[in-house]
């Protein structure tokens, strides 16, 4: 499913009616099955852009078209994986994972549970299916959240720095798993990050945003073959060239 971002402007009402402009003149085409990273310093509006694509917020002007339809509200077609852990604390892992299916495909309880168990098994979380979220580590929680969205067959996954709270080892492991999942399910993924290494590892295309106000500074195609090696020459070269041209502002 492709996404068209057309002439998007977004500003928030500040104090004394000063308008705070967050995004200006954003134009972007995301092709079906593409994995793109939105990269930029904090405050560049990358999360805001993701929320607009999700339909959780509305643009001040411009429009976003997903699969031929203008985005007006959130939908099961565009799942969001949040930076904060977003599992329902009162549901077990299995109940969390089947939540989306119960919304989109109710009445097939046994089928839903079987599918959920199959997915949990594939990422090694099956023995935690009756655990509650507070009993899981941060990495496990995000894996469950990702499975919850995948199981729902959301063609678009919108990910807002989902691994930023994890230690490096876990982050690398989850990045690898994400690539595996994406290859298998062929979702369109928009991944927000402030980590250049993460962007270079994951993306087909890196969209670099400037801040004050948020504008697209550059779009970098990543033509490194997967699986990507962090110590390969081309990986390091690309990373360096992005870092050089990137004003992280802090």
């Amino acid at each position, binding site marked *: 499913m492709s996404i068209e971002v057309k002439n998007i402007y977004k500003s928030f009402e500040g104090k004394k009616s000063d308008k705070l402009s967050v995004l200006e003149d954003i134009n972007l085409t995301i092709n079906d099955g593409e994995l793109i990273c939105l990269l930029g310093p904090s405050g560049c509006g990358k999360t805001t852009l993701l929320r607009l694509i999700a339909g959780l917020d509305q643009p001040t002007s411009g429009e976003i078209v997903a699969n031929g339809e203008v985005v007006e509200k959130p939908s099961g077609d565009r*799942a969001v994986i949040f930076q904060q852990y*977003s599992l329902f604390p009162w549901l077990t892992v299995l109940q969390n994972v089947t939540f989306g299916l119960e919304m989109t495909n109710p009445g097939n309880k046994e089928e839903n549970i079987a599918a959920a168990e199959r997915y949990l098994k594939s990422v090694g979380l099956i023995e935690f299916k009756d655990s509650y979220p*507070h009993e899981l580590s941060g990495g496990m929680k995000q894996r469950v959240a990702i499975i919850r*969205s995948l199981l729902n067959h959301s063609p678009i996954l919108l990910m807002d720095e989902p691994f930023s709270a994890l230690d490096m080892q876990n982050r690398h492991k989850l990045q690898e798993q994400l690539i595996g999942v994406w290859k298998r399910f062929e979702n369109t993924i928009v991944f927000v990050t402030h980590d250049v290494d993460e962007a270079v590892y994951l993306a087909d295309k890196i969209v670099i945003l400037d801040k004050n106000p948020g504008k697209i500074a550059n779009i970098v195609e990543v033509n490194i073959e997967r699986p990507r090696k962090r110590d390969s020459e081309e990986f390091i070269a690309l990373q360096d060239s992005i870092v050089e041209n990137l004003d992280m502002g802090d």
Partner: protein
Amino acid sequence: MYKNFNLSGEMFNNYNNKFVPIILPIILIFIWYLLTNGLGLFSSYILPGPIDVVKSAVVVIQNGKLLTNTVDTLLKVFAGLILASVVAIPLGILLGWYKALEDLCTFVISILRPIPPVAWIPFSILWFGIGTVPAVFIIFMGCVFPILVYTIDGVKRTDKVLVESAQTLGAKDWNVLKRVVLPSTVPYIVSGLKVGIGIALMCTISAEMIGSSSGLGYMILTATNLFDTGTTVVGMLVIGLIGLVFDFIFTRIQNRIFW
């Protein structure tokens, strides 16, 4: 100086003795006994001693009055509380979720809420006469607002990320309310019920003293009129005990809610 402070802190806080909570009651009962039955400083009508109270307790237990009146009071408390919950919980969820609805109701709630439930006694008698119904009405008026306010508060504190997750998983408004907002509000609803049941107990006793012919409040008042103040104390202690049990139950429930 700090060293001394720490030492005394340790002395008072690091002990392990389950009997501490019953030391004070034993001392109080002993003083009570000395002042009344022991030294006879007060007549048993003005302040009945522990022995008078035990004697009265035996009488009301044997003739079944204590049981029937306690059951009667409890039934009213439950009826009032259930009615209040049925109204306040769904209403609270709607008011907490739909801002316009809350704005519409805010004045009415703010004005009705501070009115003490017992102030409704005159109308409850005019409308419902004497008996169980007016008492249930008073309890309803007493409980409905705390439960409502706690529920509204709980809805507003629902984690926005959970609501948005549900929406992006395909949940529509009704399912967001039922599957996310309601469970996330449960801890607040339980707190509201805990406050409500305390108020319900107070309301019941007051209502029974004025417009009723049964219940612990009625028992307390009629016993006093018959100079049987031992039974009055029995009634008061049973009310205290009921409150204690409810508090224990609700604390257990609160501990079981882990989110």
